[in-house]
Protein backbone atom coordinates (compact mmCIF):
# COMPACT_ATOMS: atom_id res chain seq x y z
CA UNK A 1 0.00 0.00 0.00
CA UNK A 2 1.28 3.38 -0.93
CA UNK A 3 0.36 6.43 1.13
CA UNK A 4 -1.07 9.04 0.96
CA UNK A 5 -4.28 7.52 -0.34
CA UNK A 6 -5.26 9.20 -3.63
CA UNK A 7 -8.94 9.33 -2.73
CA UNK A 8 -8.14 11.36 0.40
CA UNK A 9 -5.91 14.00 -1.18
CA UNK A 10 -8.79 16.40 -1.69
CA UNK A 11 -12.35 16.59 -0.44
CA UNK A 12 -14.88 15.56 -3.00
CA UNK A 13 -18.61 15.23 -3.01
CA UNK A 14 -18.17 11.93 -4.85
CA UNK A 15 -16.55 10.58 -1.73
CA UNK A 16 -18.31 12.12 1.29
CA UNK A 17 -16.02 10.29 3.69
CA UNK A 18 -13.32 12.77 2.78
CA UNK A 19 -15.26 15.50 4.61
CA UNK A 20 -15.51 13.30 7.67
CA UNK A 21 -11.81 12.46 7.58
CA UNK A 22 -10.72 16.09 7.31
CA UNK A 23 -13.29 17.01 9.95
CA UNK A 24 -11.79 14.42 12.32
CA UNK A 25 -8.28 15.70 11.60
CA UNK A 26 -9.48 19.23 12.39
CA UNK A 27 -11.20 18.01 15.55
CA UNK A 28 -8.00 16.38 16.81
CA UNK A 29 -6.11 19.55 15.88
CA UNK A 30 -8.44 21.87 17.83
CA UNK A 31 -8.64 19.45 20.75
CA UNK A 32 -4.85 19.24 21.06
CA UNK A 33 -4.38 22.99 20.88
CA UNK A 34 -6.98 23.59 23.58
CA UNK A 35 -5.62 20.95 25.93
CA UNK A 36 -2.12 22.43 25.51
CA UNK A 37 -3.40 25.77 26.79
CA UNK A 38 -3.56 27.66 23.53
CA UNK A 39 -7.07 28.88 24.20
CA UNK A 40 -5.56 31.38 26.64
CA UNK A 41 -3.84 34.37 25.05
CA UNK A 42 -1.71 34.95 28.16
CA UNK A 43 -0.03 31.59 27.68
CA UNK A 44 0.73 32.43 24.07
CA UNK A 45 1.99 35.95 24.74
CA UNK A 46 4.21 34.75 27.60
CA UNK A 47 6.39 33.14 24.93
CA UNK A 48 7.57 36.56 23.86
CA UNK A 49 8.54 37.70 27.38
CA UNK A 50 10.46 34.48 28.14
CA UNK A 51 8.36 33.70 31.20
CA UNK A 52 6.75 30.58 29.78
CA UNK A 53 7.86 29.00 26.52
CA UNK A 54 4.92 26.69 25.97
CA UNK A 55 4.40 27.88 22.39
CA UNK A 56 7.92 26.97 21.38
CA UNK A 57 7.84 23.65 23.21
CA UNK A 58 4.53 22.49 21.77
CA UNK A 59 5.24 23.75 18.30
CA UNK A 60 8.73 22.35 17.94
CA UNK A 61 7.84 19.06 19.61
CA UNK A 62 5.03 18.74 17.08
CA UNK A 63 7.26 19.68 14.16
CA UNK A 64 10.05 17.24 15.03
CA UNK A 65 7.65 14.42 15.94
CA UNK A 66 5.77 14.77 12.66
CA UNK A 67 8.99 15.23 10.71
CA UNK A 68 10.68 12.13 12.10
CA UNK A 69 7.56 9.99 11.54
CA UNK A 70 7.05 11.42 8.07
CA UNK A 71 10.59 10.90 6.82
CA UNK A 72 10.70 7.56 8.63
CA UNK A 73 7.68 6.46 6.60
CA UNK A 74 9.33 7.82 3.45
CA UNK A 75 12.51 5.83 4.25
CA UNK A 76 10.53 2.67 4.69
CA UNK A 77 8.93 3.27 1.31
CA UNK A 78 5.33 3.39 2.56
CA UNK A 79 4.85 7.13 2.04
CA UNK A 80 5.48 8.81 -1.30
CA UNK A 81 7.08 12.14 -0.45
CA UNK A 82 6.41 13.61 -3.87
CA UNK A 83 2.69 13.24 -3.13
CA UNK A 84 3.01 15.11 0.16
CA UNK A 85 2.17 18.79 -0.06
CA UNK A 86 5.31 20.83 0.52
CA UNK A 87 4.59 24.54 0.72
CA UNK A 88 6.21 26.15 -2.30
CA UNK A 89 8.71 28.83 -1.44
CA UNK A 90 7.71 32.40 -2.16
CA UNK A 91 10.52 33.92 -0.16
CA UNK A 92 9.68 37.62 -0.07
CA UNK A 93 5.91 37.53 0.32
CA UNK A 94 6.54 34.82 2.92
CA UNK A 95 8.95 36.91 4.97
CA UNK A 96 6.90 40.11 4.81
CA UNK A 97 3.72 38.16 5.55
CA UNK A 98 5.52 36.41 8.41
CA UNK A 99 6.60 39.70 9.97
CA UNK A 100 3.02 41.02 9.74
CA UNK A 101 1.81 37.81 11.35
CA UNK A 102 4.32 38.27 14.16
CA UNK A 103 2.97 41.76 14.82
CA UNK A 104 -0.58 40.41 14.79
CA UNK A 105 0.51 37.64 17.14
CA UNK A 106 1.92 39.90 19.87
CA UNK A 107 -0.89 42.45 19.61
CA UNK A 108 -3.74 39.98 19.29
CA UNK A 109 -2.35 37.21 21.46
CA UNK A 110 -3.42 34.41 19.14
CA UNK A 111 -2.71 32.81 15.84
CA UNK A 112 -5.63 31.78 13.62
CA UNK A 113 -6.09 28.21 14.80
CA UNK A 114 -5.51 28.96 18.47
CA UNK A 115 -8.17 31.67 18.20
CA UNK A 116 -10.57 28.91 17.15
CA UNK A 117 -9.73 26.92 20.29
CA UNK A 118 -10.17 30.09 22.32
CA UNK A 119 -13.40 31.28 20.73
CA UNK A 120 -14.99 27.86 20.96
CA UNK A 121 -14.39 27.74 24.72
CA UNK A 122 -16.10 31.09 25.28
CA UNK A 123 -13.20 33.52 25.31
CA UNK A 124 -14.42 36.89 24.04
CA UNK A 125 -10.96 37.99 22.93
CA UNK A 126 -10.61 34.80 20.90
CA UNK A 127 -13.92 35.51 19.19
CA UNK A 128 -12.87 39.05 18.36
CA UNK A 129 -9.56 37.83 16.98
CA UNK A 130 -11.49 35.44 14.73
CA UNK A 131 -13.76 38.25 13.63
CA UNK A 132 -10.74 40.46 12.93
CA UNK A 133 -9.32 37.58 10.94
CA UNK A 134 -12.28 37.61 8.57
CA UNK A 135 -11.72 41.33 8.05
CA UNK A 136 -7.97 40.86 7.51
CA UNK A 137 -8.39 38.06 4.99
CA UNK A 138 -11.03 40.15 3.19
CA UNK A 139 -8.69 43.16 3.09
CA UNK A 140 -5.98 40.99 1.63
CA UNK A 141 -8.26 39.88 -1.19
CA UNK A 142 -9.15 43.51 -1.88
CA UNK A 143 -5.57 44.81 -1.88
CA UNK A 144 -3.84 41.86 -3.56
CA UNK A 145 -4.43 43.24 -7.10
CA UNK A 146 -2.14 46.18 -6.26
CA UNK A 147 0.89 43.97 -5.71
CA UNK A 148 -0.15 40.79 -7.46
CA UNK A 149 3.05 40.60 -9.51
CA UNK A 150 5.26 40.81 -6.44
CA UNK A 151 3.02 38.42 -4.54
CA UNK A 152 3.16 35.76 -7.23
CA UNK A 153 6.75 36.09 -8.40
CA UNK A 154 9.12 37.67 -5.90
CA UNK A 155 11.53 35.07 -4.60
CA UNK A 156 9.60 32.18 -6.09
CA UNK A 157 11.59 28.96 -5.91
CA UNK A 158 8.85 26.35 -6.15
CA UNK A 159 8.95 23.19 -4.09
CA UNK A 160 12.29 23.40 -2.36
CA UNK A 161 13.24 21.63 0.84
CA UNK A 162 16.07 22.32 3.28
CA UNK A 163 18.14 19.34 2.13
CA UNK A 164 18.28 20.92 -1.33
CA UNK A 165 19.21 24.31 0.12
CA UNK A 166 22.09 22.89 2.14
CA UNK A 167 22.88 20.07 -0.29
CA UNK A 168 22.72 17.42 2.43
CA UNK A 169 20.95 14.04 2.52
CA UNK A 170 17.45 14.49 3.89
CA UNK A 171 18.14 12.16 6.83
CA UNK A 172 21.01 14.38 7.96
CA UNK A 173 18.74 17.44 7.85
CA UNK A 174 16.14 15.57 9.92
CA UNK A 175 18.81 14.74 12.49
CA UNK A 176 20.10 18.31 12.57
CA UNK A 177 16.59 19.73 13.06
CA UNK A 178 16.02 17.29 15.94
CA UNK A 179 19.31 18.34 17.55
CA UNK A 180 18.41 22.01 17.08
CA UNK A 181 14.99 21.45 18.67
CA UNK A 182 16.50 19.60 21.64
CA UNK A 183 18.96 22.44 22.13
CA UNK A 184 16.10 24.96 21.97
CA UNK A 185 14.13 22.98 24.57
CA UNK A 186 17.14 23.02 26.86
CA UNK A 187 17.51 26.77 26.31
CA UNK A 188 13.79 27.33 26.86
CA UNK A 189 13.93 25.52 30.18
CA UNK A 190 16.90 27.61 31.26
CA UNK A 191 14.98 30.79 30.40
CA UNK A 192 11.91 29.60 32.29
CA UNK A 193 14.08 28.84 35.30
CA UNK A 194 15.89 32.20 35.27
CA UNK A 195 13.26 34.64 33.97
CA UNK A 196 10.05 32.76 34.69
CA UNK A 197 11.31 31.65 38.15
CA UNK A 198 9.97 28.18 37.50
CA UNK A 199 11.05 25.18 39.56
CA UNK A 200 12.41 22.87 36.85
CA UNK A 201 13.20 20.01 39.25
CA UNK A 202 9.51 19.12 39.17
CA UNK A 203 9.52 18.58 35.42
CA UNK A 204 8.87 14.92 34.52
CA UNK A 205 12.01 12.89 33.89
CA UNK A 206 10.30 11.04 31.05
CA UNK A 207 10.94 14.01 28.81
CA UNK A 208 14.59 12.98 28.69
CA UNK A 209 13.54 9.52 27.54
CA UNK A 210 11.40 11.16 24.86
CA UNK A 211 14.37 13.20 23.69
CA UNK A 212 16.40 9.99 23.45
CA UNK A 213 13.71 8.20 21.45
CA UNK A 214 13.46 11.13 19.06
CA UNK A 215 17.22 11.13 18.56
CA UNK A 216 17.30 7.37 17.88
CA UNK A 217 14.44 7.67 15.36
CA UNK A 218 16.25 10.48 13.57
CA UNK A 219 19.43 8.37 13.44
CA UNK A 220 17.39 5.53 11.96
CA UNK A 221 16.14 7.86 9.21
CA UNK A 222 19.74 8.74 8.41
CA UNK A 223 20.82 5.10 8.19
CA UNK A 224 17.86 3.67 6.31
CA UNK A 225 18.13 6.43 3.76
CA UNK A 226 15.53 6.87 1.06
CA UNK A 227 14.25 4.12 -1.23
CA UNK A 228 16.16 3.60 -4.48
CA UNK A 229 14.70 4.67 -7.81
CA UNK A 230 14.32 1.01 -8.79
CA UNK A 231 12.24 0.28 -5.66
CA UNK A 232 10.08 3.30 -6.33
CA UNK A 233 9.64 2.39 -9.99
CA UNK A 234 8.16 -0.97 -9.07
CA UNK A 235 5.52 0.74 -6.95
CA UNK A 236 4.28 3.31 -9.43
CA UNK A 237 0.67 2.79 -10.43
CA UNK A 238 -1.14 4.44 -13.32
CA UNK A 239 -4.87 4.64 -13.70
CA UNK A 240 -6.62 4.97 -17.00
CA UNK A 241 -10.34 5.25 -17.51
CA UNK A 242 -12.35 4.07 -20.44
CA UNK A 243 -15.72 5.62 -21.14
CA UNK A 244 -18.25 3.58 -23.06
CA UNK A 245 -21.21 5.70 -24.17
CA UNK A 246 -24.60 4.13 -23.64
CA UNK A 247 -27.84 4.94 -25.35
CA UNK A 248 -30.38 6.43 -22.96
CA UNK A 249 -28.16 5.88 -19.96
CA UNK A 250 -25.12 7.26 -18.24
CA UNK A 251 -21.92 6.14 -19.92
CA UNK A 252 -20.10 3.24 -18.35
CA UNK A 253 -16.74 4.27 -16.97
CA UNK A 254 -14.18 1.55 -16.44
CA UNK A 255 -11.06 2.27 -14.46
CA UNK A 256 -7.92 0.24 -15.00
CA UNK A 257 -4.70 0.32 -13.10
CA UNK A 258 -1.39 -0.48 -14.69
CA UNK A 259 2.17 -0.83 -13.51
CA UNK A 260 4.82 1.26 -15.21
CA UNK A 261 6.08 -1.74 -17.17
CA UNK A 262 2.55 -2.43 -18.40
CA UNK A 263 2.22 1.19 -19.54
CA UNK A 264 5.31 0.62 -21.68
CA UNK A 265 4.31 -2.78 -23.05
CA UNK A 266 0.79 -1.54 -23.89
CA UNK A 267 2.39 1.57 -25.40
CA UNK A 268 0.07 3.84 -23.43
CA UNK A 269 2.80 6.40 -22.84
CA UNK A 270 4.06 6.62 -26.40
CA UNK A 271 2.64 9.63 -28.19
CA UNK A 272 2.79 10.23 -31.92
CA UNK A 273 4.69 13.20 -33.37
CA UNK A 274 1.29 14.70 -34.20
CA UNK A 275 0.13 14.59 -30.58
CA UNK A 276 3.47 15.88 -29.31
CA UNK A 277 3.24 18.78 -31.76
CA UNK A 278 -0.39 19.60 -31.00
CA UNK A 279 0.33 19.66 -27.25
CA UNK A 280 2.14 22.93 -27.81
CA UNK A 281 -1.07 24.58 -28.98
CA UNK A 282 -3.29 23.02 -26.34
CA UNK A 283 -4.26 25.58 -23.71
CA UNK A 284 -4.95 22.89 -21.14
CA UNK A 285 -1.41 21.65 -20.90
CA UNK A 286 2.10 22.91 -20.58
CA UNK A 287 4.31 20.50 -22.53
CA UNK A 288 8.01 20.39 -21.76
CA UNK A 289 10.06 18.71 -24.48
CA UNK A 290 13.07 16.94 -23.06
CA UNK A 291 15.65 15.74 -25.52
CA UNK A 292 17.81 13.10 -23.83
CA UNK A 293 20.29 12.59 -26.69
CA UNK A 294 23.96 13.54 -26.54
CA UNK A 295 24.66 17.19 -27.21
CA UNK A 296 26.18 16.44 -30.64
CA UNK A 297 22.95 14.93 -31.92
CA UNK A 298 20.97 17.74 -30.34
CA UNK A 299 23.07 20.29 -32.19
CA UNK A 300 22.51 18.50 -35.49
CA UNK A 301 18.75 18.58 -35.23
CA UNK A 302 16.19 19.14 -32.49
CA UNK A 303 12.60 20.17 -32.07
CA UNK A 304 12.05 23.87 -31.54
CA UNK A 305 11.72 24.59 -27.83
CA UNK A 306 13.18 21.27 -26.67
CA UNK A 307 15.67 21.32 -23.84
CA UNK A 308 18.70 19.09 -24.01
CA UNK A 309 19.25 16.95 -20.93
CA UNK A 310 21.54 14.07 -21.91
CA UNK A 311 20.29 10.80 -20.49
CA UNK A 312 23.06 10.42 -17.92
CA UNK A 313 22.15 13.77 -16.36
CA UNK A 314 18.40 13.25 -16.12
CA UNK A 315 18.47 12.46 -12.39
CA UNK A 316 20.12 15.79 -11.66
CA UNK A 317 17.20 17.74 -13.06
CA UNK A 318 14.43 15.77 -11.35
CA UNK A 319 14.18 18.25 -8.43
CA UNK A 320 13.80 21.07 -10.93
CA UNK A 321 11.14 19.20 -12.88
CA UNK A 322 9.29 18.42 -9.65
CA UNK A 323 9.05 22.12 -8.90
CA UNK A 324 7.75 22.88 -12.38
CA UNK A 325 5.08 25.22 -11.12
CA UNK A 326 1.99 24.30 -13.05
CA UNK A 327 0.10 21.15 -12.32
CA UNK A 328 -0.65 20.65 -16.02
CA UNK A 329 2.98 20.16 -16.99
CA UNK A 330 3.53 17.25 -19.35
CA UNK A 331 7.02 15.97 -19.94
CA UNK A 332 7.68 14.62 -23.43
CA UNK A 333 10.91 12.64 -23.67
CA UNK A 334 12.66 11.90 -26.89
CA UNK A 335 15.77 10.18 -28.21
CA UNK A 336 16.65 9.24 -31.77
CA UNK A 337 14.49 6.15 -31.61
CA UNK A 338 13.06 5.10 -28.25
CA UNK A 339 15.66 3.21 -26.23
CA UNK A 340 17.30 6.06 -24.35
CA UNK A 341 13.98 7.87 -23.93
CA UNK A 342 12.45 4.78 -22.31
CA UNK A 343 15.31 4.56 -19.81
CA UNK A 344 14.90 8.25 -18.98
CA UNK A 345 11.12 7.79 -18.69
CA UNK A 346 11.64 5.06 -16.08
CA UNK A 347 13.72 7.41 -13.98
CA UNK A 348 11.20 10.23 -14.18
CA UNK A 349 8.27 7.97 -13.39
CA UNK A 350 10.12 6.49 -10.42
CA UNK A 351 10.55 10.06 -9.17
CA UNK A 352 6.75 10.48 -9.32
CA UNK A 353 6.79 12.58 -12.48
CA UNK A 354 3.98 10.46 -13.82
CA UNK A 355 2.89 13.06 -16.37
CA UNK A 356 5.75 11.83 -18.56
CA UNK A 357 5.44 10.53 -22.10
CA UNK A 358 7.74 9.29 -24.83
CA UNK A 359 7.81 10.53 -28.40
CA UNK A 360 6.90 7.47 -30.44
CA UNK A 361 9.74 6.52 -32.76
CA UNK A 362 11.79 9.42 -31.46
CA UNK A 363 13.33 12.16 -33.56
CA UNK A 364 13.65 9.82 -36.54
CA UNK A 365 9.91 9.33 -36.59
CA UNK A 366 9.37 13.09 -36.13
CA UNK A 367 11.50 13.77 -39.21
CA UNK A 368 9.74 11.02 -41.14
CA UNK A 369 6.42 12.70 -40.31
CA UNK A 370 7.10 16.42 -40.49
CA UNK A 371 10.26 16.48 -42.61
CA UNK A 372 9.37 14.05 -45.37
CA UNK A 373 9.38 16.86 -47.94
CA UNK A 374 12.71 18.32 -46.84
CA UNK A 375 15.15 17.18 -49.47
CA UNK A 376 18.20 18.33 -47.55
CA UNK A 377 17.62 15.50 -45.07
CA UNK A 378 18.71 12.22 -46.56
CA UNK A 379 18.03 8.87 -44.89
CA UNK A 380 21.04 7.07 -43.52
CA UNK A 381 20.34 3.36 -44.00
CA UNK A 382 23.32 2.33 -41.88
CA UNK A 383 21.99 3.88 -38.66
CA UNK A 384 21.86 1.46 -35.72
CA UNK A 385 19.16 1.48 -33.06
CA UNK A 386 18.67 4.84 -31.36
CA UNK A 387 20.99 6.63 -33.77
CA UNK A 388 19.97 9.40 -36.11
CA UNK A 389 18.65 7.81 -39.28
CA UNK A 390 19.28 10.89 -41.40
CA UNK A 391 22.30 12.64 -42.81
CA UNK A 392 22.33 16.36 -42.12
CA UNK A 393 24.03 18.88 -44.37
CA UNK A 394 24.80 21.12 -41.38
CA UNK A 395 24.25 21.27 -37.62
CA UNK A 396 21.38 23.71 -37.77
CA UNK A 397 19.84 22.69 -34.44
CA UNK A 398 16.23 23.75 -34.58
CA UNK A 399 16.48 25.80 -37.77
CA UNK A 400 15.30 23.10 -40.13
CA UNK A 401 11.77 23.81 -41.22
CA UNK A 402 10.46 20.57 -39.73
CA UNK A 403 11.79 21.46 -36.28
CA UNK A 404 8.97 23.94 -35.86
CA UNK A 405 6.11 22.81 -38.09
CA UNK A 406 3.62 25.46 -39.10
CA UNK A 407 0.51 25.31 -36.92
CA UNK A 408 -1.54 26.48 -39.90
CA UNK A 409 -0.25 23.88 -42.31
CA UNK A 410 -0.75 21.14 -39.74
CA UNK A 411 -3.94 22.44 -38.23
CA UNK A 412 -5.83 19.23 -38.77
CA UNK A 413 -3.94 16.24 -37.53
CA UNK A 414 -5.61 13.08 -36.45
CA UNK A 415 -4.21 11.02 -33.65
CA UNK A 416 -5.31 8.88 -30.77
CA UNK A 417 -4.77 11.08 -27.72
CA UNK A 418 -2.67 9.25 -25.15
CA UNK A 419 -1.88 12.15 -22.83
CA UNK A 420 -4.08 12.02 -19.76
CA UNK A 421 -3.63 15.02 -17.55
CA UNK A 422 -3.44 14.08 -13.92
CA UNK A 423 -4.21 17.25 -12.06
CA UNK A 424 -3.10 16.37 -8.60
CA UNK A 425 -3.87 19.71 -7.08
CA UNK A 426 -3.73 23.21 -8.35
CA UNK A 427 -1.25 25.74 -7.13
CA UNK A 428 -3.53 27.15 -4.47
CA UNK A 429 -4.99 23.81 -3.48
CA UNK A 430 -2.72 22.56 -0.76
CA UNK A 431 -1.40 23.86 2.50
CA UNK A 432 -3.17 26.80 3.95
CA UNK A 433 -3.85 28.21 0.52
Amino acid sequence: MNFPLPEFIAVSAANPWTYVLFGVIGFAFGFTLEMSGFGDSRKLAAQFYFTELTVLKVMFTAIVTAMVLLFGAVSLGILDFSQVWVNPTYLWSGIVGGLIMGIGFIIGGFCPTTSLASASTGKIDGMLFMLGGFVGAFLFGETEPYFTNWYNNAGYFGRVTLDQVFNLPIGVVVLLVVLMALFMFWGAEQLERIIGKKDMSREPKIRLVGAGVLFVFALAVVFIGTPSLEEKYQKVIFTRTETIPQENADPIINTYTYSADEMLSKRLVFITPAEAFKAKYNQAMNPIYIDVRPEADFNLYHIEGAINIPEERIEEVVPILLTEPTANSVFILMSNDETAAVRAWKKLVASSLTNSYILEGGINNWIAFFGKDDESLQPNPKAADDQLAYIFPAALGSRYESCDPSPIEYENLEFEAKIKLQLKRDKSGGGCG
Partner: protein
Amino acid sequence: MTTAPVTKKSIFKRPEKPYVHPYFGGVVLGIVLFLAFFLTGNGLGSSGATSRIDALIVDAISPSHVDNNPYLLKMAGGDKNPLDDWIVPVFFGALLGGFTSGLLNGRLKIMTTKGPNISNRTRWLMAFLGGVLFLYGARMARGCTSGQALSGGATLSAGSWAIMFAIFGGAYGLAYFVRKLWN
Protein backbone atom coordinates in the same frame (compact mmCIF):
# COMPACT_ATOMS: atom_id res chain seq x y z
CA MET B 1 -35.35 12.97 31.39
CA THR B 2 -35.58 14.00 35.01
CA THR B 3 -31.87 13.60 35.39
CA ALA B 4 -31.12 16.05 32.60
CA PRO B 5 -30.44 19.13 34.76
CA VAL B 6 -28.08 17.10 36.93
CA THR B 7 -26.17 15.85 33.91
CA LYS B 8 -25.97 19.32 32.54
CA LYS B 9 -24.60 20.65 35.76
CA SER B 10 -22.01 17.90 36.00
CA ILE B 11 -20.78 18.68 32.50
CA PHE B 12 -20.61 22.43 32.76
CA LYS B 13 -19.51 22.67 36.35
CA ARG B 14 -16.66 20.26 35.95
CA PRO B 15 -13.64 21.23 37.98
CA GLU B 16 -11.16 23.04 35.78
CA LYS B 17 -8.32 20.71 34.99
CA PRO B 18 -4.77 21.87 34.36
CA TYR B 19 -3.37 21.92 30.84
CA VAL B 20 -1.33 18.95 29.65
CA HIS B 21 2.46 19.12 29.69
CA PRO B 22 3.72 21.05 26.65
CA TYR B 23 5.91 18.20 25.40
CA PHE B 24 3.01 15.78 25.68
CA GLY B 25 0.73 18.21 23.81
CA GLY B 26 3.45 18.59 21.20
CA VAL B 27 3.84 14.86 20.67
CA VAL B 28 0.07 14.41 20.25
CA LEU B 29 -0.09 17.36 17.87
CA GLY B 30 2.88 15.93 15.95
CA ILE B 31 1.14 12.58 15.57
CA VAL B 32 -2.04 14.30 14.35
CA LEU B 33 0.03 16.28 11.85
CA PHE B 34 1.85 13.15 10.69
CA LEU B 35 -1.41 11.23 10.22
CA ALA B 36 -2.82 14.12 8.21
CA PHE B 37 0.17 13.98 5.88
CA PHE B 38 0.26 10.20 5.82
CA LEU B 39 -3.39 9.70 4.92
CA THR B 40 -4.13 12.73 2.79
CA GLY B 41 -0.82 14.28 1.74
CA ASN B 42 -2.01 17.57 3.25
CA GLY B 43 -0.91 19.05 6.53
CA LEU B 44 -2.93 21.13 8.96
CA GLY B 45 -4.20 24.64 8.49
CA SER B 46 -7.02 27.03 9.13
CA SER B 47 -6.37 30.49 7.75
CA GLY B 48 -7.23 29.35 4.22
CA ALA B 49 -10.74 28.61 5.44
CA THR B 50 -11.11 32.19 6.66
CA SER B 51 -10.62 33.59 3.18
CA ARG B 52 -12.85 30.90 1.71
CA ILE B 53 -15.66 31.85 4.08
CA ASP B 54 -15.03 35.49 3.13
CA ALA B 55 -15.23 34.55 -0.54
CA LEU B 56 -18.56 32.83 0.12
CA ILE B 57 -19.95 35.97 1.75
CA VAL B 58 -18.69 38.26 -1.01
CA ASP B 59 -20.03 35.88 -3.64
CA ALA B 60 -23.45 35.95 -1.98
CA ILE B 61 -23.57 39.74 -1.70
CA SER B 62 -21.89 40.75 -4.94
CA PRO B 63 -20.96 38.00 -7.40
CA SER B 64 -19.72 40.57 -9.91
CA HIS B 65 -17.15 41.74 -7.39
CA VAL B 66 -15.73 38.23 -7.26
CA ASP B 67 -15.36 38.24 -11.02
CA ASN B 68 -13.27 41.40 -10.84
CA ASN B 69 -10.91 40.16 -8.18
CA PRO B 70 -8.41 37.50 -9.26
CA TYR B 71 -7.76 36.39 -5.69
CA LEU B 72 -11.43 35.73 -5.00
CA LEU B 73 -11.97 34.40 -8.50
CA LYS B 74 -9.69 31.45 -7.80
CA MET B 75 -11.90 30.39 -4.92
CA ALA B 76 -15.41 31.47 -5.87
CA GLY B 77 -15.39 32.22 -9.61
CA GLY B 78 -18.09 30.78 -11.85
CA ASP B 79 -19.86 27.84 -10.28
CA LYS B 80 -17.03 27.11 -7.87
CA ASN B 81 -18.05 26.63 -4.27
CA PRO B 82 -15.42 28.33 -2.13
CA LEU B 83 -16.12 25.91 0.69
CA ASP B 84 -15.21 22.91 -1.43
CA ASP B 85 -11.73 22.49 -0.02
CA TRP B 86 -10.23 20.20 2.59
CA ILE B 87 -9.32 23.13 4.81
CA VAL B 88 -12.98 23.97 5.48
CA PRO B 89 -13.84 20.73 7.33
CA VAL B 90 -10.53 21.07 9.19
CA PHE B 91 -11.57 24.59 10.27
CA PHE B 92 -14.97 23.53 11.60
CA GLY B 93 -13.48 20.37 13.07
CA ALA B 94 -10.96 22.48 14.99
CA LEU B 95 -13.75 24.67 16.41
CA LEU B 96 -15.60 21.57 17.59
CA GLY B 97 -12.43 19.94 18.90
CA GLY B 98 -11.48 23.00 20.91
CA PHE B 99 -14.98 23.17 22.32
CA THR B 100 -14.96 19.49 23.27
CA SER B 101 -11.62 19.74 25.04
CA GLY B 102 -12.85 22.81 26.90
CA LEU B 103 -16.02 20.97 27.83
CA LEU B 104 -14.29 17.84 29.09
CA ASN B 105 -11.73 19.80 31.07
CA GLY B 106 -14.06 22.31 32.66
CA ARG B 107 -12.72 25.28 30.74
CA LEU B 108 -15.92 26.43 29.02
CA LYS B 109 -16.36 29.91 30.38
CA ILE B 110 -17.33 33.27 28.93
CA MET B 111 -14.34 35.40 29.83
CA THR B 112 -11.55 37.55 28.42
CA THR B 113 -7.95 36.42 28.65
CA LYS B 114 -5.70 39.47 29.02
CA GLY B 115 -2.73 40.99 30.80
CA PRO B 116 -3.36 42.35 34.30
CA ASN B 117 -2.95 46.04 33.47
CA ILE B 118 -5.38 46.64 30.63
CA SER B 119 -9.15 46.92 30.48
CA ASN B 120 -11.38 44.40 28.76
CA ARG B 121 -12.19 46.98 26.14
CA THR B 122 -8.52 47.54 25.25
CA ARG B 123 -7.98 43.80 25.08
CA TRP B 124 -10.96 43.35 22.76
CA LEU B 125 -9.77 46.11 20.45
CA MET B 126 -6.25 44.65 20.36
CA ALA B 127 -7.53 41.11 19.77
CA PHE B 128 -9.58 42.39 16.84
CA LEU B 129 -6.67 44.39 15.40
CA GLY B 130 -4.32 41.46 15.91
CA GLY B 131 -6.73 39.23 14.03
CA VAL B 132 -6.91 41.70 11.13
CA LEU B 133 -3.12 41.89 10.91
CA PHE B 134 -2.47 38.20 11.44
CA LEU B 135 -4.84 37.02 8.74
CA TYR B 136 -3.65 39.73 6.35
CA GLY B 137 -0.10 38.47 6.85
CA ALA B 138 -1.20 34.85 6.69
CA ARG B 139 -2.82 35.31 3.30
CA MET B 140 0.24 37.14 2.05
CA ALA B 141 2.52 34.33 3.25
CA ARG B 142 0.09 31.69 1.92
CA GLY B 143 -0.42 30.14 5.31
CA CYS B 144 -0.34 30.81 9.00
CA THR B 145 1.44 29.24 11.94
CA SER B 146 -0.37 25.99 11.17
CA GLY B 147 -0.23 25.84 7.39
CA GLN B 148 3.30 27.20 7.11
CA ALA B 149 5.28 26.96 10.35
CA LEU B 150 3.87 23.64 11.55
CA SER B 151 3.07 21.79 8.32
CA GLY B 152 5.82 23.32 6.19
CA GLY B 153 8.25 23.00 9.07
CA ALA B 154 7.65 19.25 9.31
CA THR B 155 8.06 18.71 5.56
CA LEU B 156 11.25 20.83 5.65
CA SER B 157 9.94 23.40 3.17
CA ALA B 158 12.61 26.09 2.88
CA GLY B 159 10.06 28.90 2.53
CA SER B 160 8.09 27.73 5.56
CA TRP B 161 11.17 27.84 7.75
CA ALA B 162 11.85 31.39 6.59
CA ILE B 163 8.25 32.31 7.43
CA MET B 164 8.51 30.67 10.84
CA PHE B 165 11.54 32.77 11.73
CA ALA B 166 9.81 35.86 10.36
CA ILE B 167 6.78 35.28 12.60
CA PHE B 168 8.91 34.89 15.70
CA GLY B 169 11.08 37.80 14.57
CA GLY B 170 8.08 40.10 14.14
CA ALA B 171 6.59 39.13 17.49
CA TYR B 172 9.84 39.36 19.46
CA GLY B 173 10.72 42.61 17.71
CA LEU B 174 7.53 44.30 18.84
CA ALA B 175 7.11 42.54 22.20
CA TYR B 176 9.07 45.11 24.19
CA PHE B 177 7.00 48.01 22.88
CA VAL B 178 3.67 46.46 23.72
CA ARG B 179 4.71 44.93 27.05
CA LYS B 180 1.96 46.88 28.85
CA LEU B 181 -0.58 44.70 27.08
CA TRP B 182 0.66 41.54 28.72
CA ASN B 183 2.64 42.36 31.87
